[in-house]
């Protein structure tokens, strides 16, 4: 997570380590509470690309697959998998 520290350093000119801590904790707790392992989303993303790639020409550089919280305020674990996948075209099926 060193990239987080770099990001904040670029924005503010100095490292506010507590902001890094806060973001890391939110990430970790979200996954702890929902029992979805943090790296599982990446695995799912790769498999989605493989399936779509059979039928559609998708822009892999601009696609995004994310696990988001449905309710920011409470301890609920309700979440949604949100995918945004730009389609360049349809593949001709053989």
């Amino acid at each position, binding site marked *: 997570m060193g990239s987080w520290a770099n990001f904040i350093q670029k924005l503010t000119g100095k490292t506010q*380590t*507590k902001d890094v801590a806060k973001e890391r*904790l939110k990430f970790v707790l979200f996954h702890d509470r929902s029992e979805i392992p943090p790296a599982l989303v990446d695995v799912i993303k790769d498999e989605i690309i493989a399936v779509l790639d059979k039928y559609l020409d998708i822009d892999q550089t601009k696609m995004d697959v994310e696990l988001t919280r449905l309710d920011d*305020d409470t*301890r609920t674990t309700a979440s949604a998998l949100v995918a945004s996948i730009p389609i360049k075209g349809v593949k001709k099926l053989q």
Partner: protein
Amino acid sequence: MGEAIVITSGKGGVGKTTATANIGTGLAMHGHKVVLVDADIGLRNLDVVIGLENRIVYDIVDVVEGTCKLKNALIKDKKTEGLYLLPAAQTRDKTAVSSEQMTTLINELKEEFDFVLIDCPAGIEHGFKNAIVAADKAIVVTVPEVSAVRDADRIIGLLLANEVSYVRLIINRLRKDMIDAGNMLDIDDTLEILSVDLLGIVPEDSDIIRSSNIGEPVIIKAESPSGIAFRNIVARILGENVPLMELKKEPAGFFASIKKLFSRKQV
């Protein structure tokens, strides 16, 4: 009928025992009859923090095994009227007491005392389960540090899942110098992350170590910030609306000491 409050944290070393000792002493100082129950069997510490280590004859395991009656194991604190301790066993482990035995014991204590404060061991295993089984309310203690907050979150989840629905947070060991420098999670950060109601805060204070050296909880003299913080926490438990104390930098050095001599006590 009294109420049973468990003081827990998940993470070890964040201040559960210190909080139990100070809150219990404070409630007794207000005239209530309070018993402190050390549920950390095998690693007892409540006795030494409160200065009653040389008065232990029987312990909680003796009581549940029938070796002695409950009243024989209770130690009456001579410094604070109305304060009692039920010590843990030191030579056994947490499997020595079952959940049923713990429930019976706590219910028996609730009939005699206004407050039953249970000092929970670290972890989430048998010791934790025993400590929470008969609790009406829970106080979760944490420090503003990544591992502790993560563990506190897990503990809060387990408490809610085990039908302890009244959960309040104490944030311990806050350091104003680090908060100002942006290197420590502040109160709002911690509350935002944990989504739980705040009971109170306690600043980092070297007086805590001095107090446990001599076995006298800081709340008794309340000369130091942590002592004042615990007094505020006790007042809130008793229903008073006390605003959060302002964090001050822990002073150091010669001139700071002189300044402290002439400054007025913070109320």
